[in-house]
């Protein structure tokens, strides 16, 4: 839906954002220590354009959220009779995420397929997703771990976004070409009262997209991954392969928690202090690298060892998910799992090697 | 380690000979004494009996001076000065006291937290130079000299402040004198008070206490008393004519500073030791010592003669026997 394009001069960005975000909490990248994270943005605050260390998925799918509170209530006449009351009110405010990249925004699309449009609509996710406008910034450079162009995503991909901003020009002459992707995006963009982007600027934006795409291709030509889903299944029993792949994995959760598409969660109940009669049910991010992931009540875990857990992560993204979702890969090639990994485990290498030479696979 | 020297006021007056002999003996032993620049009086008993902070301030001024001169230890010959300086340093650990002293001084109190250590010249000699080194430098042993070592009451007490030697039965001066060749007599009153500065105001006290000390030295057969304190020396020597002798039997008992005997043993000329400034003639002691040596030599000679005679007799006997034997064989 490329109905119209607007132009935001560099100096106008903060003002435009204020207008677009009217009535919404804006989340924008902010430097904290040596990391860049999404944080609520104050009005008038000049936004940071750096790519965030952590994707903005937590805005819609929080690291830990209370699903409901449970309150035990005693029968005043018989303390032995206790009833439990649930309070599932969730306070969700309209929000706007600014400054994510196409790979970040496309993450929401991966989530949508599971929590919004799947067989079970998740009310918490749905409410936040629907209340949140995603304003994405197109990429102008190819990072060394970027491989979005392998996965169906790209430096100017609009999947999951409501508005796409493309930086054009430079210095004081620079600005952004803003294109509404969705109706909602259009409405929000309208609020900012911006001039239309002229053809030259629209072309410039296209040129930026093309240049970045070319740079990515030059850095690492996209391999043919059409056979990957089946190849990975064939690799399922190749323990040596997965051992080699996972040797250096430390089983931490950095890759999954930095991933814009990882959507697994865990549920725990916690008691409140106070009178001891209240508690809450929490949903928090889970991580398939952890030994606790899918651990059964007996203590047994069908995915014994880090090799099988890493197999799950790669398999899920490049085989199981695409098989359920029309071939859509649940990896956007953002590369954060590679840069964020303390030992540089490289998912690209695993996918390529699994796809390539599997002739010797015993279980093929 | 740099050693600062605090002479004490009496060294400029009544204990001149202590001061002179201390410097002479230290020089002979290669101990360098750096006077605290422009040192002042520690206030002695009159100050601490009036107020502890005042006493602390008078002492602290000198310790700060030593620290500024780059010294980490202060040595003083006088036990009263020693006691005041050490007590001041000891109490300075208390924040309140330090602040109080600080208010009396020109300089702010921050220097007071880490004052240099304080020790007596006796401690310096015994611990720093060491008895072995001293023994090796003795050129004129004090042979035959029987001495009663008198340390004075505050050189070692109270023990937790002074932290030197046994508070009741110190032996460092005994050991030093023994190393010099003197004979130390058993003296039970090593740390019993002589009456201190009460000579002027309450002569009766000094007369009795010093009398007891001199009497014990006399009874123990000492030729002299050896002291490490100007006040003790004055009470025992100058006031010897005033004391009450136990049993009424007065003798002439020379009273040396230990540094004088040390200097003498090391071969320092008497003139540098101020022996002539003692009231009771020191020659008395040396004379008695010489008598002992002479008697001993006479006895040894007699013994040797006797032994020689015995040996000769034995040899004669053996000769006789051998002769008899030979005769028999023949």
């Amino acid at each position, binding site marked *: 839906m490329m109905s119209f394009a607007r132009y935001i001069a560099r100096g106008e960005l903060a003002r435009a954002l204020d207008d677009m975000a009217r009535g919404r909490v804006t989340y924008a990248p902010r430097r904290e220590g040596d990391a860049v994270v999404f944080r609520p943005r104050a009005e008038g605050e000049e936004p940071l354009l750096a790519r965030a260390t952590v994707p903005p998925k937590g805005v819609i799918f929080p690291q830990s959220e209370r699903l409901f509170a449970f309150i035990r209530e005693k029968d005043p006449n018989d303390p032995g009779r206790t009833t439990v009351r649930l309070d599932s009110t969730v306070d969700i405010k309209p929000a706007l995420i600014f400054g994510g990249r196409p790979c970040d925004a496309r993450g929401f699309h991966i989530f949508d397929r599971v929590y919004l449009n799947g067989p079970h609509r998740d009310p918490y996710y749905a409410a936040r997703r629907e209340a949140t406008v995603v304003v994405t910034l197109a990429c102008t450079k190819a990072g060394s771990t970027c491989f979005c162009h392998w996965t169906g995503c790209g430096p100017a991909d609009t999947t999951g976004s409501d508005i796409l901003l493309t930086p054009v020009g430079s210095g004081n002459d620079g600005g952004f070409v803003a294109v509404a992707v969705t109706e909602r995006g259009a409405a929000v963009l309208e609020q900012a009262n911006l001039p239309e982007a002229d053809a030259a600027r629209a072309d410039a934006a296209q040129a930026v997209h093309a240049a970045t795409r070319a740079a990515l291709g030059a850095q690492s030509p996209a391999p043919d991954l059409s056979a990957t889903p089946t190849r990975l299944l064939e690799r399922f029993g190749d323990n040596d392969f997965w051992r080699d792949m996972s040797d*250096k994995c430390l089983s931490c959760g950095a890759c999954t928690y930095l991933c814009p598409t990882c959507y697994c969660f865990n549920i725990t109940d916690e008691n409140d202090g106070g009178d001891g009669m209240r508690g809450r049910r929490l949903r928090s991010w889970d991580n398939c690298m952890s030994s606790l992931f899918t651990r059964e009540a007996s203590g047994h875990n069908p995915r014994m060892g880090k090799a099988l857990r890493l197999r799950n992560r790669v398999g899920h993204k490049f085989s199981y998910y695409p098989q359920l979702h029309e071939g859509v890969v649940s990896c956007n090639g953002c590369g954060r799992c590679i840069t964020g990994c303390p030992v540089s485990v490289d998912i690209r290498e695993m996918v390529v090697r699994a796809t390539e030479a599997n002739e010797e696979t015993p279980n093929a | 380690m740099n050693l600062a020297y605090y002479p004490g006021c009496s060294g400029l007056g009544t204990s001149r000979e202590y001061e002179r002999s201390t410097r002479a003996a230290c020089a002979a032993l290669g101990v360098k004494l750096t006077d605290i620049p422009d040192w002042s009086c520690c206030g002695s008993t009159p100050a601490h009996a009036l107020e502890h902070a005042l006493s602390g301030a008078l002492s602290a001024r000198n310790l700060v001076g030593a620290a500024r001169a780059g010294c980490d230890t202060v040595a003083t010959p006088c036990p009263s000065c020693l006691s005041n300086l050490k007590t001041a340093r000891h109490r300075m650990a208390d924040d309140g006291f330090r602040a109080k002293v600080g208010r009396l001084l020109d300089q702010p109190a921050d220097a007071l937290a880490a004052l240099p250590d304080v020790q007596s010249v006796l401690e310096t000699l015994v611990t720093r130079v060491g008895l072995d080194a001293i023994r090796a430098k003795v050129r004129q042993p004090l042979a035959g000299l029987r001495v009663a070592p008198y340390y004075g009451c505050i050189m070692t007490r109270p023990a937790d402040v002074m932290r030197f030697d046994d508070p009741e039965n110190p032996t460092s001066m005994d050991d030093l004198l023994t190393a010099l060749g003197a004979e130390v007599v058993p003296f039970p009153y090593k740390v019993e008070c002589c009456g201190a500065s009460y000579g002027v105001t309450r002569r009766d006290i000094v007369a009795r206490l010093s009398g007891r000390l001199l009497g014990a030295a006399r009874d123990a057969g000492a030729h002299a008393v050896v002291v490490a304190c100007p006040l003790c020396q004055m009470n025992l020597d100058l006031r010897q004519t005033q004391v009450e002798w136990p049993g009424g039997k007065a003798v002439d008992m020379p009273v040396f500073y230990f540094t004088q005997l040390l200097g003498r043993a090391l071969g320092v000329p008497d003139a540098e030791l101020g022996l002539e400034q003692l009231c009771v003639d020191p020659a008395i002691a040396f004379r008695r010592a010489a008598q002992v040596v002479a008697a001993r030599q006479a006895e040894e000679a007699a013994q040797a003669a006797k032994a020689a005679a015995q040996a000769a007799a034995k040899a004669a006997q053996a000769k006789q026997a051998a002769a008899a034997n030979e005769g028999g064989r023949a």
Partner: protein
Amino acid sequence: MPVLKGKELRVVGFLCNWCSYGGADTAGVGRFSQPTDLRIIRVPCSGRVDPMFVVKALLGGADGVLVSGCHPRDCHYSQGNFYARRRLETLKTFLPALGIDPDRFQYTWVSASEGQRWKNVVSSFVEKVHQLGHAPRIEEAAPYLPLAEKGDTPRAPLRPPLRPLSYPAAGTLAASLEQLREKIRAALPELDCVIGWQQGFDALHATPLFMRKPEDVDKLTWGPLNVHNLATYLPQFKNRKVGVVVKGCDSRSVIELLQEKLVEPDNVRVFGMACEGVVDMTRVQKTLDAGNADGAMCADTAPSSVGVEGDNLSIEGEAPARLRLADVVAEKCRTCDTPVPLLGDVVEGNASAPAGPAPDAPPSPPSLDALDSMTPEQRRGFWRAQMDRCLRCYACRNACPMCVCRDHCIAESRDPHWTTQEGNIREKLQFQVIHALHLAGRCTECGECQRACPVNIPVLALKQWMNRSVRTLFDYRAGVDVNAVPPLLAFAVEEKNIKEHGL
């Protein structure tokens, strides 16, 4: 039921059953009136008091915590209070690192007969807590991010004495590396594998290498990019023979693992080489970004090769750069005193590997200096702000060579249930405290926790603080002696450096 508003503060006591609980009883029998604030939890022994209980209480809103046991030598279990004394003193010295006033925590000894003493202890402690007032909560502290706008965690300048930076000429290095490879090739047949480094996803990144076949050995690299401490992998090879390549600092972790019997001396072959220092990737990245006028639109660049030239790290490729080593080398390397591995089959390599500062004058790490320079309030704000972005990925833990519990870490277990999955500051910080306390006397300050953190939280400072405490209290340094007993697994009847706290 809350504490009585305006009257009481929340004061929690842990009392051993045999002495102090009895002492409190005796005080009661003697009708010694006491402040009502204290709530007593009875435990069998002060040795049962996990310092984490204290932390849990203090982070959870207690205004004061008091632990009391039997007098030293008088423990019902003969040694419990000796262990308690070490643990609790260690905790007391650690609390200020979190911005918690150490006066809010006190431990003491009261016997069953000392009713009067108990009254005095309670009265003076509660009075002290009242003087301090309500405990400020870390989650309510004003965030304090010094230099945040510059994107810098607080780094004071490195203080001398520093190790000079001098790298061997390329030829020397290659010869040494080949020597090392030879040793490994020779040993490989008897080993499951040998762990080393190879080039990672680009020339700027190394990655661990698991050598199983002789040809794998060719991939082995050596240089300033070998940042990982490979000792971390050793415990998982239990009962298998494995080799590992170490830098000087890594060797200390191996020693620590051997000491704790988590690695069998017969099962591990250590290969080492004198180390000239490694880079701090965060610093490298930041230095590269600083040159990026566009506000680091994209953080990564893909260099074609990286090497050391004189005092510089030279990066070739699309965006060539010369980085002063002094700017990008890891802090720990500038203050390193063990450039040559302390054990194993060592290639002296660059024989001129410069010695570091003398071990008796351990330099103060800059991040610790920074923490020291903050007020307690700033420290609370600092940790609040830093922990806010923690993802609870536990990379810090999993990269730590001494975090041997791994799958059984109490941070994630329900029994015992120390932390919840709540995403708040308290729970996140609590884990960092667990990590630091569990590392007391074991941490070699390899810095893997901080290096591994994907969001660069300066968690190493907590361990550095703890190490300083351990050094001061017990004259102990981890990872130098295989046969040493770590201080918290031992005690002394008379503790040289622990003074009784007057209560």
